[in-house]
């Protein structure tokens, strides 16, 4: 019996959390897609990388950090632009023992850093693509 391949949903977030609801919408939709058994891959670009900051404590806003962590726990692959993350002080990204240093005490567990080429590869794996924010 051939197992049917799960469809993959790629989501790109271009806007910072809290200043708009784009991150909220993306997280809610990602959760629904995971509940329905689809693969979910997310790419954070530009100010959207602030969604990866750990220990966010919004009092009344949608808890983007917690939601993103929950999505990762449920199996989503969340990629973050390394250049955007270096620029905003999340990682150093310098070469260390022949590898880029992606260690950080500032980001949610499970975030994967990659270049913009990783973003292109993600699009190549996707059956469907949704984008959020950026204007």
């Amino acid at each position, binding site marked *: 019996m051939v197992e049917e391949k799960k*469809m993959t*949903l790629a989501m790109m977030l271009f806007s910072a959390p809290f200043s*708009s*609801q*784009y991150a*909220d*919408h993306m997280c*809610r*939709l990602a*959760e*629904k*897609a995971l*509940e*329905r058994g*689809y693969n979910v891959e997310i790419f954070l670009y530009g100010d959207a990388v602030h969604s990866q900051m750990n220990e966010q404590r919004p009092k009344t806003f949608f808890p983007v950090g917690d939601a993103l962590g929950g999505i990762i726990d449920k199996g989503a692959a969340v990629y973050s632009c390394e250049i955007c993350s270096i620029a905003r002080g999340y990682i150093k990204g310098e070469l260390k023992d022949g590898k880029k240093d992606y260690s950080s005490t500032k980001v949610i567990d499970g975030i994967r850093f990659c270049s913009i080429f990783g973003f292109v590869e993600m699009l190549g794996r996707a*059956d*469907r*693509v*949704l*984008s*959020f*924010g950026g*204007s």
Partner: protein
Amino acid sequence: MLMRTPSSEEDSERLFCLTREDVGQDIAIYLLGDAVLCARKGQSGHHGTGVRETLRKGAQLRACARDLRARGIRPEDVESGIEVVEDLEGVLIEDVMEHEGRVVSW
């Protein structure tokens, strides 16, 4: 997938021009977040005209019930023909993954 309100007449024109041609049956517009403000009935200008024209052309408009409630818009305030959906994210994902190949996000 509309997640914000048009910020000008030109913006509104851009958002709703997709439905101007006779392709309405093939288009579904999902209103989330601030975009649910487009669902309020009786609006003037391109904004109101855009919504009514979109419905007249046969496109489906669905608004998120949670986001309508958050903005104090009651079901009776919603333009006739717009479907108010409790689990809009679930319906949208189903639609996108199983039926729609192309999604434009605003």
